[in-house]
């Protein structure tokens, strides 16, 4: 149980960081919607799990938050990437790419027998 959650949270964290890099400061709801949209609605983000993940990233210093006003004039908490967050994003993205590349090679059909 614990393992699964960690993987998911790890991936979620990467998605959050990437979203913040792409769109700049954003509130929690916005991040969640953006992730869903980017995934082509293949991913259903459980909004409930998003907030603990944001809190974790903030505690680790990858993002920071402050209260601001939303487009439709609502008080909302905005998250933005810190310098450490940017570095972390680069590092994790690189690692992720590497991992998918390796897996892709394994899963590519027929390569092994050739």
């Amino acid at each position: 149980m614990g393992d699964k959650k960690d993987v998911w949270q790890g991936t979620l964290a990467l998605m959050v960081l990437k979203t913040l890099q792409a769109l700049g400061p954003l509130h929690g709801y916005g991040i969640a919607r953006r992730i869903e949209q980017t995934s082509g609605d293949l991913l259903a983000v459980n909004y409930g799990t998003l907030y603990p993940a944001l809190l974790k990233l903030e505690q680790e210093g990858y993002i920071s938050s402050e209260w601001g006003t939303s487009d439709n004039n609502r008080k909302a908490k905005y998250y933005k990437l810190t310098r450490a967050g940017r570095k972390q994003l680069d590092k994790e993205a690189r690692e992720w790419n590497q991992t998918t590349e390796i897996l892709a090679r394994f899963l590519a059909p027929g390569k092994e027998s050739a």
Partner: protein
Amino acid sequence: MRLLRALFLRLAALFRKDRQEREAAAELETHLQLHIEDNLHAGMSAQEARRQALIKLGGIEQTKELVRERRGLPMLEILLQDLRYGARMLAKNPGFTLVATLTLALGIAANATIFSFVSAVMLKRPPVREPDQVAVVSAISPVSSWGVNLNPFSAPNYFAWKKENHAFADMAAADPYAGASLTGDGDPERVSAMRATANYFSVLGVSAQLGRTFADGEDQDGRDHEVILSHDLWARRFAADSSIVGKTIRLNGTPYQVIGVMPAQFLLRSFSAQIWIPLELNESQQNAAARENRNLFLFARLKPGVTIPEANAEFQRLAHTAELNFPDTEKGWGATVLTLQDHMIREFNSGPAMIVLMSTVGFVLLIACANIAGLLLARATGRGKEIAVRLAMGAGRLRMVRQLLTEALLLAALGGAAGLILTFWGARLLKSALSFNEEVRVLDLSLDLKVLAFTAGISLLAAVVFGLVPALKSGTSDISTILKNASAKASAGRRQNRLRSLLVAGEVALAVVLLTGTGLLLTAIIEGLSRGLGFDQQRLLTASLALPDSHYPDGPKQVGFYRQLLAKLENIPGAESAAISTVLPAGGPEEVSFRLKEQENLPPGERSKARYIVVSPAFFDTAKIPLIRGRVFSELDGPGTHRTAVVSEVFARRFFPKGDPLGQQVMIDTGGESGAQWREVIGIVGNVKSWPLQTSDDAEIYENYLQQPAGEMAVLVRAKGSPESMAPGLRQAVWSIDKDQPVARVMSIEERIGEQTAGDRLFGSMLGIFAALAVTLSAVGLYGLVAFTAGLRTQEIGIRMTLGADKNRIMRLVLGDGMKLALTGIAVGMIAALPMRRILEGMIHDFRVNGSWILPSMAAVIGLVALLACYIPARRATRVDPMVALRYE
């Protein structure tokens, strides 16, 4: 780094809860509003928009809880919260808390007290340098006789092996049972002395508190008149005189110079001595007599890198070589190497008693745990609703289990703390009871770290045992059923009660097993104590005398002394008769091998053995041992006249199954030239026990001290009145002949027997206490269950009464439920206890008891106690007022 930062922030979050709580709520509220607005844009109705947003968020409270967990340190926070909550719960139910704490404290204290004893015997390291490196080499006798088979060696073996072994850096020899007369200021005193080679203290790696220990060569002739005092003797006899070093004291009439005083903590159980004097050994003596003289224990320090098993293997080889080279004296003798600590444990020889005690208190704790588990289960029933509500409010199931476990731990901590206080008293009480001999007197029962760790450990274990069952149980109950069910109490009660019933039946079964084992042991002890010893114990004063060789070097001198003494003793006012013997009746085993003239001539090691006692002619009259046939010794027998022996009934029956022993010839292996003479059996006397509580009877053979004189003798005086009142007279009689002769252990023979049986009596009373505790605890458990169940059924009972059930019926109903459980437990317990007697017989040497009645009667006792425990709540149930009962709930 990142982790640390996060940890720090989370720790800090613990103290800024309110603000963060508000912010989190605001953030989620914004989230919800934004989502609703989006949904409205998408064309949903206001109601639908809100509904969808809420579903997607997945429960605001649950999300808040998840955020909360991430924000602070949930582990720590929850623990603190649970502890706070648990403490509140315990404080709110003082009755429950008191009963549970007390139950647990008793169980833990019983265990910890016994453990402090076991630890003192088994785990305390001897007070020497690097105790693991210090070994004792002992001889293994070919005839495994009474007690522990760890024996001393002869000097020739010591010299040979000291040179030949490769295992030890150094090896010392010591005769621990030397003994000496200490004279000078005050009464002459017999002190226990160890004669040791000069390197003894350096092998052990200990040094003196005052002065020094022996130097090289001080065990050689001419330089050996030096003595080291124990702290105890120095403080008692010499008033802790700090200038004692260099002074001279008289031992056996000879001056010895004090060179040192050992520190108080230098106490080696089974090698304790009051003084140490140099052991002078002559390497050139290699004859058979020197090899037969086995009186030396070998102490050694291992070479670095050599292990005990290696040393052991080497000494087994050396012993084997000796067997081949000296078959006459060494045949069958082996050698074993143990660490000093292991040697002391082996010599203490209480393994079975400790196993029995530890398992008994283990059972007691188990019963206590079952009781508390039962109480917690009962409470869990009442708390079913509370827990269901909390689960519905977003608490995780694991969280609930943890909370119940935390409460159990809190309870265990309370019980452990209270138990520790009881242990403090228990250990003090036990220590004061352990004073009946030197070996137990030196035991240190202090509550050291090991005892504390043990107490903490069993408290924790107890918490897991009694806390896990109800905790897991509550973690799996179904919320909706409990919440829906208006009278959740009764329905949940039924289910929980099955488990409680199991616990209580188990407790009763344990109590039966425990009581049976204890009953068997106690009966054996009581039977042993009341068994006749073969002589009259009343009004018999005794004392121990050891005539030093320096004053009484030969038989005629010894006989001369004792003749005078006996004449004087008989004339003490109040004395009826007086006698001497080498071993007192029931005073311990003393074996000798012998040969009957009609038997084939076997080598000494393979001959029959008997208990051997040298006595004065009046011994049988004085001790009131009946003469069965023939005659006893005469004052007229002497070294010149032909030699005689008296045998006991068992001797006659065992070795002359058909013929008449009277007039037969027997040769007793007493060594020296007298050993080679034939003795004529002149009489048969009644058998005497070799020690109190002995179940079997030994063959006994007696000789006349006039023909076989000895320096060490016990004195017996039969009094007309109180034996103690003759003690001064006895001392004066000895000192009027020799003012420097110590008189040791002047006491009635009943007192001596009391000392010998003190260990067994202590063991018995401890078992009795623990068994009583076990029975009480299981009765409390049974009572608790029956009372609780009856309480749950108040309404039902009310209905039954309204419908016409009379009091007897109600009584039978409640009583029957309880007794069904008790009887099940008793039946299981009886089956489990069946092999108990066999187990004890296998475990304890010389254990025999006539106890087929014990198992059924112990079961009956438990049955009665159970009946009482059920009767009280049953009676209360009959007094239920139907009107009140129906309004109940």
